[in-house]
C-alpha cells in the first residue's frame, strides 16, 4: 500500500479558503513545504486532514464542529477536501461541516470504490491504514515525537505494532476463535442443550471478565508510571526545599542512603530465613533425623524399585496367584511383562527423588548451613536496624519540614499521597499477575485464573459439541500468534534500538544521547530526561526508522517539524527525513527555515515544492504589491504563493506587515 497526498481544498472554515495542489505537473514532489505564519490555521488544517482521512468527524459533537467555523462570521456550512493517491489511484474525501445543525457529512470519490459516493468510503484495501491509531503515526505535530518518550503513554509500542503489522497476528487469532465459536452453534442435542447454553453463557462472562481485567491491568500500569513520575518530581522538589542548610541536607541524604541499605539487608535476611524454612531438616534436628530414618528404612525395604519389581518376578514363578487362582503359562508371561508398570512410575520417581534429596541435603551434614534460630535472629536484627534508621530519617525530615514552612509540608503530603497510591497500584498489579491459588473464585482479579477457567470452559464446550479437535487446533493457532507477536516485538525493539542509536550517534554529536531500550515508550540510556531538542531528535529517529521498516509507504505530514531543535540537529534531521519516507509534507513557520530547509532540499535532490500561505489582513493587502507576477493564487481571504524565492524572503518583517 502506498499513500501519497496530492493536495487539499478548504472553503468557509476557520482556516483560509484555499486550493492547494502539491504538483505543478504530473509528478508529485518528494517534499512539500507549506509556510504558514502563526494564525493561518495550521492546527485547524491538520485536524481537518486527520478527520478526512479517518472518517471520525461523523461522531463529532456540535461544539466540536463549531470550533471550525470562521471567526469572521460563519456561512451555513464549510467544506474541506483532501486529495490522495492510493497505490497511484486517485481518492478524494470531502467533509461538509454544517454550522446550523452542528453535523459533519462525508463524500468519497474513488474509481476503486464506485465513483462518487455519499459517506466515508475509501477503498477496502486502504481502510486498515486509515484508522485513528494509524493516521496518528504519519499525520502529527512535533508533540508526537515527544510523546514517544513519555513513559505514561504507549506510543512507541503502538507504532511498532501498527507499522510493522504485528496486529495482523491478532487478526488471525480472532478469525480462528470466531470460527470455532460459530462451529459450536446449533450442534447440541436435546440432552446437552441446557448444559451447553450454561457453558456458553459462562464463556461469554469469562471472556468479558478477562478483557476487562486486561484493560484494568494496562490502566493500572499506566497510572503507576504516571504516579512514579509525579512522585519523583515531588521528592525532588521536597529535597530542594530542605536543602537550604548544607549540613542538614547532607545528613538527610546520608540517612536516606543508609535506609535503602538497611532495607536491602532486611530483604536479604528475609530471603535467608524463608530459605531455611523451606528446608524441613534445618527447621529441627528431629525432622532431620526422621527423614534420615525414612531413607534408611526405604533402602532396607528396597523400595521403590527393587521390591516392586521383585514382588512380581517372584509371583510369576508361583503356581497360584495371591488371589488363589492358578497361574498358567499365559498369566506368567503377562505378569512378567507388565510387572514394572504396576506400582506406577510416578510414585517410584517421587520416592527415588525423596531418597536422593535426603541423602544429599540431610545425611550429608553441611557445617556452613544456617540454622533457623540463627536466621530468625539475623532477621530480627535487620528489622530492628531498618526501623531505627527509618525513625531517625523521619525525625530529621520532620524537623527540617517544620523549619522549611508550609510549602514543604504540602510537598510532604503530596509525597505521602503518591507513595500510598503507588503502593496500592503495585499491590493490585501483583495480584493481577500472580499465579492462581486455591481460594480464587469469580471475584478474583488474578488474570491467570480467569484464563485457566476460560480454557477449561472452552474444553467442555468442545467436548459437548464434538469440536474437541477443532478447539485444540484453535488453541495452537492462538498460542502461536500470541507468542509470535511478543517475539516479533522483542526482535524489532532490539533492531530498532541499534538502528536508531546508529542515526543518533551521527545526529547528536555535540550532545550525545542514546536509547537504552524500547518498552511502551523509548527509554534513554543513563539519563531520565533529555533536552527538548534531544527528545525530538530521538522521537523522529524512532518514527522514521519504524516508518522506513514498514512495507507500506505513507506520507509524513508534520506541523512545525523543526520547532525546538537547535541548528545542528535541524540540519541532521532535515537530511535524514527524505531518505526515510515516501513523501514529506510540512507546515512550517519562518523561524524553522534556517538550517532545516537547506539540508532537507539537499537530501531530497531539490525535489521540493515551496508554498507560502497567508491571510488577507490589513497589512496583507499592502503586501499584495510585493507578490511575484506568477504563481500566486488569491482567494476570498488568503494568498497562496508558489516558489522558493518568496518562501525564503518571507520573514518576520513580512509577518509584521501582515499583522499591521
Amino acid at each position, binding site marked *: 500500500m502506498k499513500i501519497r497526498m496530492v493536495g487539499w481544498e478548504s472553503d468557509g472554515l476557520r482556516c483560509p479558503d484555499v486550493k492547494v495542489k502539491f504538483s505543478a505537473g504530473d509528478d508529485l514532489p518528494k517534499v512539500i513545504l507549506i509556510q504558514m505564519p502563526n494564525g493561518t490555521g495550521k492546527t485547524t488544517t491538520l485536524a481537518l486532514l486527520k478527520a478526512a482521512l479517518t472518517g471520525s468527524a461523523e461522531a463529532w459533537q456540535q461544539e466540536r464542529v463549531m470550533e471550525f467555523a470562521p471567526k469572521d462570521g460563519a456561512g451555513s456550512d464549510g467544506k474541506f477536501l483532501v486529495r490522495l493517491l492510493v497505490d497511484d489511484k486517485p481518492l478524494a474525501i470531502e467533509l461538509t461541516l454544517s454550522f446550523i445543525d452542528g453535523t459533519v457529512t462525508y463524500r468519497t470519490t474513488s474509481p476503486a470504490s464506485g465513483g462518487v459516493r455519499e459517506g466515508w468510503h475509501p477503498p477496502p*484495501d486502504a481502510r*486498515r491504514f486509515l484508522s485513528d491509531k494509524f493516521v496518528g503515526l504519519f499525520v502529527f505535530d512535533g508533540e508526537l515525537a515527544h510523546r514517544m518518550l513519555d513513559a505514561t503513554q504507549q506510543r512507541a509500542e503502538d507504532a511498532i505494532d501498527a507499522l510493522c*503489522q504485528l496486529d495482523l497476528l491478532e487478526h*488471525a487469532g480472532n*478469525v480462528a476463535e470466531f470460527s470455532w465459536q460459530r462451529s459450536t452453534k446449533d450442534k447440541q442435542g436435546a440432552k446437552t442443550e441446557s448444559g451447553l447454553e450454561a457453558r456458553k453463557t459462562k464463556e461469554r462472562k469469562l471472556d468479558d471478565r478477562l478483557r476487562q481485567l486486561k484493560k484494568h491491568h494496562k490502566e493500572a500500569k499506566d497510572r503507576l508510571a504516571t504516579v512514579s513520575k509525579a512522585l519523583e518530581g515531588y521528592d525532588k522538589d521536597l529535597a530542594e526545599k530542605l536543602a537550604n542548610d548544607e549540613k542538614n541536607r547532607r545528613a538527610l541524604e546520608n540517612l536516606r542512603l543508609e535506609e535503602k541499605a538497611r532495607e536491602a539487608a532486611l530483604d536479604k535476611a528475609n530471603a535467608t530465613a524463608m530459605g531455611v524454612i523451606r528446608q524441613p531438616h534445618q527447621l529441627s534436628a528431629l525432622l532431620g533425623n526422621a527423614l534420615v530414618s525414612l531413607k534408611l528404612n526405604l533402602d532396607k525395604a528396597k523400595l521403590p524399585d527393587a521390591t516392586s519389581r521383585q514382588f512380581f518376578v517372584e509371583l510369576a514363578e508361583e503356581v497360584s496367584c495371591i488371589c488363589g487362582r492358578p497361574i498358567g503359562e499365559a498369566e506368567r508371561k503377562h505378569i512378567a511383562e507388565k510387572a514394572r508398570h504396576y506400582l506406577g512410575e510416578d510414585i517410584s520417581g517421587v520416592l527415588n527423588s525423596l531418597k536422593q534429596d535426603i541423602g544429599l541435603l540431610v545425611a550429608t551434614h553441611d557445617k556452613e548451613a544456617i540454622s533457623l534460630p540463627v536466621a530468625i535472629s539475623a532477621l530480627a536484627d535487620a528489622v530492628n536496624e531498618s526501623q531505627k534508621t527509618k525513625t531517625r530519617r523521619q525525625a530529621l525530615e520532620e524537623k527540617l519540614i517544620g523549619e522549611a514552612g508550609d510549602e514543604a509540608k504540602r510537598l510532604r503530603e503530596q509525597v505521602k499521597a503518591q507513595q500510598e497510591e503507588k503502593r496500592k497500584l503495585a499491590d493490585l498489579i501483583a495480584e493481577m499477575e500472580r499465579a492462581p491459588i486455591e481460594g480464587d473464585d469469580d471475584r478474583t482479579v488474578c488474570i491467570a485464573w480467569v484464563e485457566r477457567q476460560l480454557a477449561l470452559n472452552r474444553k467442555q464446550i468442545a467436548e459437548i459439541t464434538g469440536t474437541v479437535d477443532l478447539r485444540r487446533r484453535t488453541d495452537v*493457532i492462538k498460542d502461536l500468534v500470541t*507468542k509470535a507477536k511478543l517475539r*516479533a516485538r522483542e526482535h524489532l525493539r532490539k*533492531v530498532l534500538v541499534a538502528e536508531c542509536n546508529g542515526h543518533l550517534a551521527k545526529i547528536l554529536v555535540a550532545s550525545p544521547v542514546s536509547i537504552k531500550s524500547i518498552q511502551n515508550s523509548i527509554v534513554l540510556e543513563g539519563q531520565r530526561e533529555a533536552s527538548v531538542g534531544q527528545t525530538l531528535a530521538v522521537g523522529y529517529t524512532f518514527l522514521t526508522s519504524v516508518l522506513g521498516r514498514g512495507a507500506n509507504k505513507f506520507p509524513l505530514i508534520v506541523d512545525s517539524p523543526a520547532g525546538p531543535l537547535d541548528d545542528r540537529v535541524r540540519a541532521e534531521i532535515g537530511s535524514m527525513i527524505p531518505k526515510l519516507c515516501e513523501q514529506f509534507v510540512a507546515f512550517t513557520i519562518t523561524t524553522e527555515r534556517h538550517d532545516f530547509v537547506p539540508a532537507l532540499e539537499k537530501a531530497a535532490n531539490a525535489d521540493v515544492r515551496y508554498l507560502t500561505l497567508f491571510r488577507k489582513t490589513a497589512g496583507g493587502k499592502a503586501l499584495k504589491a510585493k507578490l511575484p507576477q506568477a504563481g500566486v493564487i488569491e482567494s476570498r481571504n488568503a494568498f497562496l504563493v508558489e516558489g522558493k524565492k518568496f518562501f525564503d524572503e518571507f520573514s518576520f518583517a513580512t509577518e509584521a506587515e501582515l499583522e499591521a
Partner: protein
Amino acid sequence: MALDNELISAVNEVCKELGQPESVGKRLIAWLKECSERQLSGAEDNEHLELLRQAIAIGTEADL
C-alpha cells in the same frame, strides 16, 4: 509487498518451539502476507484458516 523479516522469523521460531511442522509457519505467513497486501473477505480469511488448521499437528488427549 513483504512482511517485516522480524515478524516472519518470530513466527518460524515460535512454530518450531511449539513442535509444529514447518508448513504451519509457512501457511500462517502466507495468510499474513495476503492480509498485508489487501483487505481479505471473510471467506478468504476462512480459506487460509482451514489450510492452517489442517497443517497443525496435535498431541494426545492427555495434552488437552
